């Protein structure tokens, strides 16, 4: 039995190694367009994991994710840039993430008082407030036109178009290629830490909060503390995503961080399956990549016109919106536990056909995601 367990562990390790190698290949084969899709997807995945922790696991509805992304993005630009303190970019990135976490911490007294849909509305105010500040605080944010993003430099290596010139295996490494590996490293960090959280003591406590706050308190969970901690942790991930987005865009503008962005992130975690890291990632890739792919291949799709042409039915951006609107409805109707749930059920079916393997560790399964239609249990 321990042999089989060991086998399982080895094949798991091998699987992870294979995946890591595969994810390192694209910069050598794909052009900048695909690398940008990957980069935006990775950034979105980091942010979506943060929201999945807050909304999926801890059950706190947030429409303010765009605000925390903006704090991370603008925090980095201001801290590393001119005008601004002009800190070393690595330090600025770290401080920007912490700044987003601090913003979450400042908001947490509000989060500790209001619940459910009311919390959603309260976080909505953050987005409007944030957008207003981004537009008006010209000296820090650059106003309507935004600011250009200073490239990240770590130990003399720039994640930008040169300095030093770099060619790996005959492929010239420009900004996209370099940022790909930065994004990959940050995403791996997010994956590792978020899964550790979910499978550990804090994840169980957050899931208990979602299912019944009274019961969680009676079981020894400090309700107020965990409610605010969920906000801080989620904001830290949002800040990290914001920094990576800024680096990928090379220019930050206020209009990007609007309510629509918050809604996009909610769509990601719903499509992916609430409360799971893998689900949030899948949802993030879907929601991010779809509009970009539609724009690129617009001319080959029926009823969709190429960008810029006046006649025709729908533009590619609108078509992408329709498509993911339809995806959300389909997911809610047929798979309330999202893409992650579909995969899990398929895996269970395969497992049922095979003889059962004993010795699987029950606690390594993360807290189950909340089905969208599930209501809270009543407690006395």
């Amino acid at each position: 039995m321990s042999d089989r367990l060991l086998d399982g562990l080895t094949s798991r390790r091998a699987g992870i190694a294979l995946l890591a190698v595969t994810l390192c290949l694209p910069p050598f084969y794909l052009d900048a367009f695909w690398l940008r899709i990957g980069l935006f997807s990775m950034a979105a995945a980091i942010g979506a994991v943060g929201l999945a922790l807050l909304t999926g696991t801890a059950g706190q509805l947030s429409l303010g994710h765009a605000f925390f992304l903006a704090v991370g993005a603008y925090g980095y630009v201001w801290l590393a840039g001119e005008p601004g303190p002009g800190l070393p970019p690595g330090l600025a990135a770290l401080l920007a993430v912490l700044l987003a976490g601090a913003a979450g911490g400042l908001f947490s007294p509000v989060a500790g008082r209001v619940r459910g849909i009311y919390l959603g509305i309260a976080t909505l105010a953050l987005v409007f407030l944030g957008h207003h500040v981004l537009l008006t605080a010209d000296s820090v944010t650059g106003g309507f036109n935004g600011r250009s993003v200073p490239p990240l430099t770590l130990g003399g290596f720039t994640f930008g178009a040169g300095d030093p010139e770099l060619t790996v295996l005959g492929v010239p490494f420009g900004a996209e290629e370099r940022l790909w590996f930065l994004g990959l490293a940050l995403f791996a960090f997010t994956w590792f830490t978020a899964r550790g959280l979910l499978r550990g003591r804090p994840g169980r406590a957050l899931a208990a909060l979602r299912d019944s706050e009274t019961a969680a308190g009676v079981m020894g969970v400090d309700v107020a503390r965990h409610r605010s901690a969920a906000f801080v942790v989620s904001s830290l991930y949002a800040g990290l995503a914001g920094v990576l987005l800024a680096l990928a865009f090379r220019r930050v503008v206020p209009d990007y961080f609007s309510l629509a962005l918050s809604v996009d992130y909610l769509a990601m975690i719903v499509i992916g399956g609430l409360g799971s890291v893998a689900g949030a990632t899948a949802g993030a890739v879907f929601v991010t990549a779809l509009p970009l792919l539609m724009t690129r291949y617009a001319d080959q799709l029926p009823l969709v016109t190429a960008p810029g042409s006046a006649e025709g039915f729908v533009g590619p951006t609108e078509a992408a919106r329709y498509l993911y609107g339809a995806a959300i409805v389909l997911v809610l109707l047929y798979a309330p536990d999202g893409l992650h749930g579909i995969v899990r059920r398929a895996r269970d079916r395969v497992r049922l056909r095979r003889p059962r393997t004993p010795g699987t560790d029950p606690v390594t399964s993360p807290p189950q995601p909340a089905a969208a239609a599930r209501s809270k249990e009543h407690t006395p």
Partner: protein
Amino acid sequence: MNDRTPAAPPVLGVRDVTVRFAGLTALDGVSFTVVPGSVHALIGPNGAGKSTCFNVLSGLCRPAAGTVTLGGTELTRLAPHRIAALGVARTFQNIVTTQGTVADNLMLGRHALSRAGFAASALRLPRAVREQREHLDRVREIAGLTGLGQHLGSPVALLSYGDRKRVELARALCLEPRVLLLDEPVAGMNAAERARMAEVIGDLRAELGLSIVLVEHDMGLVMRLADDVTVLDFGRPIAHGTPDEVRQDPEVLRAYLGADVQAEDAA
């Protein structure tokens, strides 16, 4: 690691507790003392204030007057999670479990006994990993004790009603409580499940030596398990004593069966 206290649990004292909900007096000067290591039953007709009394004991409800003390500590002003940390665990009348496996639920019960915080868990520090493994070992033991051993990896949602009730009990035990509050542990169970649950509760008391406060409508179970019984009616304590004394108390008969029992007895 093993946090069971070998010494007798502290005395749980309830003194003149009064709870009012907007004009309605749910509890009116209730006092009783839970002798260490005993099973103390709280009975009464529906709406007598039994669950409210539990909510006061576990900190979910602040009394307007009166005190609850555990040993030398006053519980009345403490938040629920602080009371839990002192070793007071409870189950709910309607099952309250978290989604996930039985093991997830039981590990949640060990929250107050473990330390790993957000940073340690996120970075999977060796200390957090080791702690989780050690607590999982104890969770397996407790699951065995409550007959849930083979369900440890099953999602709670797939278990039968009786098994889910036992998950709640096991989760409460995972706190290594010194005082265990059981709110209708056999409600809605069939005869076989009831008998099994009664056995488990009896074993717990014998093996772990904890004090148990029990709210239950099943008089058979109360009479079999309880050492002391407090009877509530409309929030007022109307009788105290051993099960036999309480059974013969005219006030209790009146509360349960109606006012004319005494008249018929006299006739």
